[in-house]
């Protein structure tokens, strides 16, 4: 595909004015949606993904329950008007199924599923708008949504996409760049710095791969800072709200303490 737009101009700027390693602005909204146990809307620039998490709850299909851990169920829906061209993707679309399978296997080792035997955790992903970096947005949003549902996680998972233009690695590709460049998506667990997901779908020389891979791993930590800030902000907001409500009911607390000590006396 030939493009009339310069991916990286002589001044070192990309088509949308970013520098080589500059990420798009990230927006994380964790306000509750409907009856979901956990929810997040994450935007990377113009790519926007909403994830709702239900569970752990009673498994819908008894035959599929596992006696020692929870079952994960991931469903991905792409809105027909999310991309530039209106296109309806069925649920059985292989690309969608692959996306769901990647999300599932990324989070299976991260969620401490053994704490919730015989249960099911449902993750519903809906892609609201796409402008490149779909997998990264889905993974980041799922990570935050799981945290907001209070599900035990080993770590947050942070994903970033990257590409190579000539010999220059770029990070967080937009749809325009994704179409023209070999691109990689990397997901890391920031505490251990280990890699849970790597995908590369286009031809790239081995030597180039190493460089963009390392850059993407570093960028994962930047995403992590943002995610942590959002999760903390949400937590502190809720804690404050609970504190504000209990302020006046000090009596209750005292009474409860008495009750507790009575119980302890037994």
């Amino acid at each position, binding site marked *: 595909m030939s493009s009339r737009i310069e991916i990286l101009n002589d001044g070192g700027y990309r088509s949308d004015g970013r520098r080589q390693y500059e990420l798009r602005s990230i927006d994380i909204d964790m306000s509750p949606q409907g009856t979901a*146990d956990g929810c997040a809307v994450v935007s990377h620039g113009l790519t926007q993904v909403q994830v709702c998490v239900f569970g752990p709850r009673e498994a819908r299909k008894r035959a599929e329950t596992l006696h020692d851990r929870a079952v994960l169920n991931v469903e991905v829906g792409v809105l027909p008007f999310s991309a530039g061209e209106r296109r309806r993707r069925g649920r059985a679309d292989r690309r969608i199924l692959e996306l769901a399978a990647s999300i599932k296997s990324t989070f299976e080792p991260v969620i401490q599923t053994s704490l919730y*035997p015989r249960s099911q955790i449902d993750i519903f992903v809906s892609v609201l708008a796409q402008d490149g970096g779909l997998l990264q947005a889905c993974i980041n949003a799922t990570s935050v949504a799981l945290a907001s549902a*209070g599900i035990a996680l*080993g770590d947050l998972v942070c994903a970033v996409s990257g590409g190579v233009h000539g010999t220059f690695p770029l990070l967080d590709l937009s749809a325009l760049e994704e179409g023209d460049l070999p691109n990689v998506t990397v997901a890391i667990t920031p505490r251990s710095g280990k890699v849970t997901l790597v995908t590369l779908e286009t031809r790239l020389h081995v030597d180039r791969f190493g460089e963009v891979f390392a850059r993407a791993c570093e960028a994962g930590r930047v995403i992590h800072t943002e995610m942590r800030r959002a999760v*903390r902000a949400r*937590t502190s907001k*809720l804690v404050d709200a609970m504190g504000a409500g209990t302020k006046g009911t000090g009596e209750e607390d005292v009474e409860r303490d008495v009750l507790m000590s009575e119980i302890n006396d037994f």
Partner: protein
Amino acid sequence: MVLDDEDFAEGTQKLTCPGEPITSSHAFMRGHGTYVDNEEVIASVAGTIERVNKLISVRAIRARYSPEVGDLVVGRITEVQPRRWKVDANSRQDAVLMLSSVNLPGGVQRRKLESDELQMRTFFEEGDLLVAEVQAFFADGVMSLHTRSLRYGKLRNGQLITVPPALIRRLKSHFITLPCGVDLILGLNGYIWVSKHLKQNEQEGEDAFDAEAVYSNRNDDIDDATRAAISRVSNIIRILGAHFVPLTDTLLLDAYEWAVEQEGGVKDLLNSDIGDALVSAVAARS
């Protein structure tokens, strides 16, 4: 991050987020919401750090209900199985209500017969709501409920509101009667039943318990004023739930008084500015 005793000074609540190291695993023991890796205690949920002596745990700010024996819960029947009902109680797995843990018509101490097994749906069927107490746990962690008290059993004459379970504190009594003729049952699982007030003698029943009334599927007559009051209380709970305010009886009373003072319609409460005003008003009042 290394924890010192000062970190747990009164009034400060330390927040954490999944994957954040809290302290060394040599000096402390890990509790709920944490795990140990590489000699460090690490948080696995987002919430507040709590410490009891050497035990560190993280209380998730929002999570499913984790039951304890003796808790009062409101639940919904999801399935009728041989000699038991499955009850959705907002927990990790559906709770179990054994046929042997309910009061049946014809005397509290009556033996369960085979005919009772065959007509389990006449007591509870799928979709019925009930209030019960957590009796015990099965080996696989499923909670078992019982309704062997005259206050427990099938629910009618009202509506169900759901709030995050963290907002329901353990109170002296979870059966609250508001002066506006509304009864509240605050299930510790975050399910709240708002219904028409029943007079004490009706509620307790006469000495033998009245199976007709206990397992009835018909609502009593509810007058318009009571209906409005039920809706108003429900809306107040919804607002408080949305603002993540813990519910107590005094708080609900204050909120109801405030709502009546405003003289607005019942549905006006759901406007966001009125909702915000309500929350700040109750916070100021108390």
